């Protein structure tokens, strides 16, 4: 099966927008992906026909909303092949999911002198919550380094994992470098030392088929808005045995069983971790996004995006003074780059004038920039609705910028 690109592009209305009178070329997919009408229609329908606060409602609308939201949970469960639907916790996004684990798991299992292991190529959202936890508990944050190609140095794992290591948190795909990490290998090794693993899948669920049971992941987190779904919704997958032991993180409605002023007993999974009115319309939207992606097929999406990446990489390499950051053997569909003598911000600003949306800066991964001794990069990230023609526009745009800086680059 191949991608019917024209049909797909019609599903994403924003792709026909004009920016400064030019056709939009959207290459900022790693920051947020666009949303097809199949998703926005469903959300609009719920707002217009069924909107009502979910759970415990006595009336028709509440039942409809509850049904929609709980169906979405089952869609997520099947999407990542979780054993139980109650292992799927809805959050505001990847960041909140990591914070939930760092707080609740951290409260339960981490004490003074214990160690938390993260990698050098993590997004700040998979560093800072652990750092805060370590400060609270007087625990130690350790770092698994990567080499100059942007590949994790797995040979360091045996010395970094000690009998004090309580959890390892690592991304599946790096948002700053595009590296696809061998998470199965990492999980297997960590488990051989009895260390549970949290996988940050924010950059991978939209590209690769994830099977939490086959991976044996203990926790896996991702966001809806990078998976062609709405903003403000994310997922925490956790193994039942951990989620049952972990204390609730936030208190409020929905997460309780009985409340008196003396004592409160907590609800069962997944509601124990979902205090307050959830973003149920976004949950329903996320379910619709999963339906959309699965109808095309993640294997088809992945193959096409790899084709885009290979095409772009070859073209990039032909540009004089071009340096690509992240040249791992296994890479996902983004290119982080700098042209010698041109500041990333200048490049981004000028590409923007041509209607090309890229991201510039540290990509919330300052340690990655520190590794290479740079302040930031320009990042072009591709999705399955992008085309080789758009990559040609980007290449022409970069060449135009180089020309404008003419004297400075030679």
């Amino acid at each position, binding site marked *: 099966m191949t991608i019917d690109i024209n049909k797909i592009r019609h599903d994403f209305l924003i792709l026909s927008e004009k920016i*400064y009178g030019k056709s939009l070329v959207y290459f900022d997919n790693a920051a947020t992906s666009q949303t097809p009408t199949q998703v926005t229609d469903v959300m609009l329908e719920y707002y217009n026909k069924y909107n009502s606060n979910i759970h415990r409602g006595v009336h028709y609308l509440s039942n409809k909303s509850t049904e929609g939201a709980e169906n979405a949970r089952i869609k997520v469960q099947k999407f990542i092949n979780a054993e139980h639907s109650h292992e799927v916790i809805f959050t505001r996004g990847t960041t909140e999911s990591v914070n939930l684990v760092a707080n609740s798991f951290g409260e339960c299992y981490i004490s003074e002198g214990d160690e938390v292991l993260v990698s050098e190529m993590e997004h700040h959202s998979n560093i800072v919550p652990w750092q805060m936890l370590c400060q609270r508990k007087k625990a130690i944050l350790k770092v698994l380094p990567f080499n100059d190609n942007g590949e994790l140095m797995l040979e360091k794992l045996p010395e970094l994992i000690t009998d004090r290591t309580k959890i390892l948190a690592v991304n599946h795909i790096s948002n700053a470098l595009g590296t696809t990490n061998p998470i199965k290998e990492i999980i297997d090794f960590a488990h051989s030392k009895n260390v549970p693993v949290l996988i940050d899948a924010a950059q991978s669920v939209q590209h690769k088929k994830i099977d939490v049971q086959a991976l044996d992941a203990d926790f896996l987190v991702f966001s809806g808005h990078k998976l062609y779904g709405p903003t403000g919704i994310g997922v925490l997958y956790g193994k039942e045995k951990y989620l049952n032991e972990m204390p609730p993180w936030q208190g409020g409605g929905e997460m309780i069983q009985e409340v008196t002023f003396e004592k409160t007993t907590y609800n069962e999974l997944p509601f124990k971790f979902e205090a307050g009115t959830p973003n149920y319309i976004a949950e329903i939207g996320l379910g619709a996004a999963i339906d959309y992606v699965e109808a095309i097929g993640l294997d088809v999406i992945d193959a096409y995006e790899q084709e885009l990446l290979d095409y772009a990489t070859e073209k990039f390499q032909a540009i004089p003074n071009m340096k690509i950051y992240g040249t791992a053997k296994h890479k996902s569909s983004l290119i982080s780059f700098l042209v010698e003598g*041109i*500041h*990333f*911000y*200048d490049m981004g*600003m*000028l590409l923007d*004038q041509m209607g090309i949306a890229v991201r*510039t*800066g540290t990509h919330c991964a300052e340690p990655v920039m520190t590794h290479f001794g740079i*302040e*930031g990069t320009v990042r072009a990230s591709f999705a399955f609705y992008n085309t080789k023609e758009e990559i040609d526009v980007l290449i022409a745009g970069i060449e*135009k910028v180089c020309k*404008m*800086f003419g*004297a*400075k680059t030679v």
Partner: protein
Amino acid sequence: MTIKEIQEEIIEEFVGFDDWMDKYAYLIELGTDLSGLESQYQTDQNLIKGCQSKVWFNAKLEDGVVKIEADSDAIIVKGIAALLIRVFNNQTPEAIMNADLHFIDEIGLKQHLSPTRSNGLVAMVKQIKMYGLAFNQKMNN
């Protein structure tokens, strides 16, 4: 020339540019030509925070007027800084304090004024105004 007159002059120059490329090519030229700051002035104290690019400003009071120098690692940002210097350099602290800055809007660089652009144009203007305020107080003491 007054701050108002210099702004009018700049606006007139930019009217002559037909498309965005000419405009930015001019900013690149301005940025390249601005002598910048010696490394001893590229200090954390002179750094304008909250920018994707690094911007340094240094100002002093000399014979009742403010002398401003600036630098940036991004050329276009440096070009914008050069325009600000052209407007504010050699003006009195009082004139800087009370200046109504409208040229940025009129030459079509308004998008860079939005704080979310994080190129620090807002922070740059704020910094210059702070210098005006500080030097004005100093003169009146």
